[in-house]
């Protein structure tokens, strides 16, 4: 620090002669000390700039030293760049909470769109996290392959990437893809000498794969059920079975599982759900579900004349894909953004919804926004029917979308790609901090800004900088919970049941085996 302070002082003395007097110098020093005390970390960056240029001068004299200093300068600069963010907030937020009209977090007792509402919450330590839902944030969505366990099978590796980029999205798609990838991983497995396949395979070979998939995106309920089934299957294998036989058996069982629990089930559900679609029906659906799509297409093939309204939401725009495939099949489809929901719900005669999971209290967990669709439909007396395979039934219970949910990276809400070099070199501006101060009070848009914010007075902040905008939080939940009373019927392979029968079916299908 001593060495950093020096050059800064030099620049001060250079300015001095204009106004003269040691007083100024004193004041400047005091000012600086105060600043330093206030935000130590913040200081590092501006103070660090002059030495870098100094280093350049010295280079000619002693090259080795120059290089060294340069490096040091860079290292600390980098540190300085990273650190300001947390410290900034730490500094200003305390002030704000006292001054600003802090709003108590009204926790909805049971609700639907609750999760979409709290886009602004009490600002606390971390700007990127919405406090109320902080328990839902994944540890870290894996940005690249570095640090992945090397036991992960290539097929699973690829699947993880496809899942995290939403190339494979949707509960049943992910479940099927996972099982197929596991089949490959199991085939590639060889049992070590001193152990047996049933004892070793799950804990040492499958669990790294599962952990990796979980790090790509939290597991879906259907995946959880399938994994539980698979583990049970493997553990109960006869240890004396020859290895290749055991592997073949497991793979065949997986095929059978996929076939019975998903492929055939889908057909059964589609067959029974399509009876709900009659001539001149208007089917409203939300986002995209594979079963709903299948149901609609089958009904169309049967020759039923009806119309489909697809309501869609950001940021995945799954409804677009559904509308595309319906139109390709020659159906009359109307595509409406979520904001147009109230308008189209009047026309609908039937609402068909897919599910991420059916919870044991009869509530539906599905793509965020589903609850609003169901509520609207319920108000308009349009029957709401959920199509859901029993693999997706869950023993969990939730009253609201806060306890069980998945938070996707908020960046996904942005419309255009993040410019590459946005936060690059703000350090250069830092020396003008003194001039920036005078302009500070004039800012009305951001009253909470302190001195550190004034360093870049000219820069207009966009949503891309949401990280650094105080009082702004982005929230991108994946699911919400639809209350059971809005759901008229759940169609699964065991037949059409009321939401209250979900735990029974769950016990039969997922725990009875």
């Amino acid at each position, binding site marked *: 620090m001593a060495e950093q302070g020096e050059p800064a002082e030099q620049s001060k003395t250079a300015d001095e002669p204009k106004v003269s007097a040691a007083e100024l110098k004193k004041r400047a020093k005091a000012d600086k000390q105060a600043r330093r005390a206030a935000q130590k970390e913040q200081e590092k960056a501006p103070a660090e700039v002059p030495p870098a240029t100094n280093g350049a001068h010295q280079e000619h004299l002693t090259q080795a030293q120059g290089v060294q200093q340069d490096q040091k300068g860079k290292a600390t600069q980098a540190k300085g760049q990273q650190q300001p963010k947390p410290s900034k907030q730490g500094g200003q937020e305390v002030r704000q909470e006292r001054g600003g009209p802090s709003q108590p977090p009204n926790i909805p007792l049971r609700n639907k769109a609750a999760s979409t509402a709290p886009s602004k919450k009490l600002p606390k330590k971390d700007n990127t996290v919405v406090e109320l839902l902080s328990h839902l944030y994944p540890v870290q969505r894996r940005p690249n*392959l570095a640090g992945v366990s*090397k036991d992960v099978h290539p097929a699973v590796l690829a699947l993880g990437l*496809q899942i995290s980029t*939403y190339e*494979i999205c949707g509960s049943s798609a992910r479940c099927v893809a996972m099982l197929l990838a596991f089949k*490959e991983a199991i085939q590639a497995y060889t049992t070590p000498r001193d152990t047996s396949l049933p004892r070793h395979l799950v804990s040492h070979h499958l669990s790294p794969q599962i952990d990796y998939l979980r790090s790509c995106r939290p597991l879906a309920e259907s995946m959880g059920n399938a994994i539980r089934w698979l583990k049970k299957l493997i553990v109960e294998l006869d240890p004396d079975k020859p290895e290749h036989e055991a592997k073949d058996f497991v793979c065949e069982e997986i*095929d059978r599982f996929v076939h019975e629990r998903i492929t055939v089930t889908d057909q059964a559900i589609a067959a029974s759900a399509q009876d709900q679609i009659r001539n001149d029906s208007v089917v409203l659906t939300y986002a995209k579900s594979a079963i709903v799509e299948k149901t609609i297409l089958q009904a169309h093939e049967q020759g039923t004349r009806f119309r489909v309204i697809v309501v869609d939401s950001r940021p995945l725009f799954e409804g677009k894909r559904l509308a*595309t495939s319906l139109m*390709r099949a020659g159906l009359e489809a109307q595509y409406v953004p979520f904001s147009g929901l109230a308008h189209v719900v009047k026309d609908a005669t039937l609402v068909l919804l897919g599910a991420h999971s059916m919870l044991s209290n009869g509530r539906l967990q599905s793509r965020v926004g589903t609850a609003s669709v169901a509520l609207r439909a319920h108000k308009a007396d349009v029957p709401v029917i959920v199509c859901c395979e029993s693999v997706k039934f869950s023993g969990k219970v939730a009253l609201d979308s806060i306890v069980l949910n998945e938070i996707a*990276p908020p960046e996904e809400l942005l419309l255009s790609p993040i410019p590459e070099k946005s936060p690059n070199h703000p350090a250069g501006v830092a020396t003008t901090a003194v001039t920036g101060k005078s302009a500070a009070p004039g800012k009305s848009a951001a009253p909470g800004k302190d001195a550190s914010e004034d360093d870049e007075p000219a820069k207009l902040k966009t949503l891309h900088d949401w990280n650094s905008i105080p009082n702004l939080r982005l929230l991108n939940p994946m699911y919400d919970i639809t209350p059971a009373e809005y759901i008229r019927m759940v169609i699964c392979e065991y037949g059409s049941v009321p939401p209250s029968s979900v735990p029974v079916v769950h016990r039969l299908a997922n725990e009875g085996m």
Partner: protein
Amino acid sequence: MPHATHPPSPGLQALILCGPGLSLNTFTSTPSTLPKCLLPVANRPMLWYPLDWCHRMGIYDITLITPADAAPPLEAALRSHPVLTSLSGPRPEVLAPKGLEMTSGTAELLRLGEVQRAIKGDFVVLSCDFVSEIDGSRVMQQWMSLNPALAAASFSRRKGGLAVYYPTHGREGISSKKDETDFVATVPFSRPNVMPPTGSLRQGVEEVVMVMPTDTLNDTLDENKQALPIRQTLLAKHGNVKIRTKHRDAHVYFLPLWVKDFAARNEKFDSISEDVLGWWAKAGWQQGLAEKLGLDEVLAGKRSTDDEAANGGSVDEHEEVDATALSSTRSAPAPGRQPPQAFATRVGNSTVPPPRPKLAVPPLLAYMQPASPTQPLIRRIDTAPQLASLSLHIARLPPSDTSPLAHEHKIHPSATIGQQTRISQEDCLIAENVTIGTRCNIKESVVGANCEIGSNVRLTKCVLMDGVVVGDGVQMVGCIVGKRARVEGSSAVGVKAGEAEVDGAAMKGKGKAKQKASAQSGGEDDDKTKLTECEIAPFFVVEAGTEAKGETMKAFDPEGEVGGDEDEDVDVGDEDNEE
């Protein structure tokens, strides 16, 4: 290069093609001793760069394919070269197929029996002259996540490929107008489902619809009165074609297994970049072309070769559960019936379904690196100027840099440096056991291992490969000096000139530039050796007093040189003694 942790295996194997290096012929005229892939680039053999790149991706199953006569030096280098042996992981396998000539095309190479047998799964084809700062796993991630078929089915015949193209322009110090380029026409690949996270290459991934080298393009233009004929079907299928002429193929291809059969079926294919990829790209939209190329049968999985029968087997048919079809971010393909066109154009993601939906050619994707100086570097080194500029670029990287190419030591501790010698640290690279005399001035240069540099030498923008001897008082600017070449300086003239007379016939082809020198041979040494922008072949001796600019100095008679090589190999020590 110890990697902290081994990345997981991506299930790919790598083929590194170690070709002859035609455009570097000053340095590679004798592949039996110094093949192109062992030429030093910033004091590492060229081969190190693709090898290290693969290792960083987690690919350890690497096959080096080389013509038979270059195989022994390659194997020797893999065993003994300190830089290559420091790479972790198993040593790559060297494959020297019998039929492989120096002139064979790359697709021809794929058809060879040995290579066909060596390819057991999806593979990456690299060229040995590939240098990249971009992390291979980032490129690979795109390939993996964008594969249309569920990658889980590892023998799936619907996987696509991924190539990498880099901009040749917009890079100060490295780009030059003379760089070779390719002609690439691309269409946007389906938009990402959500904004990709920062650092993802997804924004740069496009689908290739046409690709050819600029040479072929020029030929086509000449044939057609400076017009490029493009089929209407391309425009009918893709409304938004982007044509680039300043990008260059990095010769890195992530290819699915079926490409092996595809190359084997089409005897006419000569090179991978032009023919295999070129026709594949066209087959995606040109009607009937896929069938003509036999793609339908290749994709249908007619396993032309013996093995794999055991793998596929019974389950294949009914197991066609397609997870991607269930995915909520995909729309179902069109059924047999033709839908009304009016609908299709209104929705962004829809494309007019192919006339024969049975045969969907997997997409050939390409990562088109945006042209911007801040982008990490991707380059191929196939000309001498590129070799020099890239070596100097790497020399400029600070040792702490995050770039995987940076050297740990800018000046190796084992180098001996005389007094009052100035070496500009930030842009020089001095390798092991280098001896530098007094009062030298070295700027922006790369000095290879075991070089000996006399006193009062000035080197600017020079690349000296291993074991170069530079005499006193030599001045060189922008020169590339081959392995164990010798540039004589003023003080040694008396001795050297006599020597030159003696064995000149055996090992020294005399460049024209030396006429002046020979006229004065034995004479006094007023004029120093001054070389500007010269290329000096390995083992060549530049006599004292030579002044040259922009010349290539190499022996005329290849046989004489070969003979000379052998001599030199034995008695480098001798040379030292003579001094």
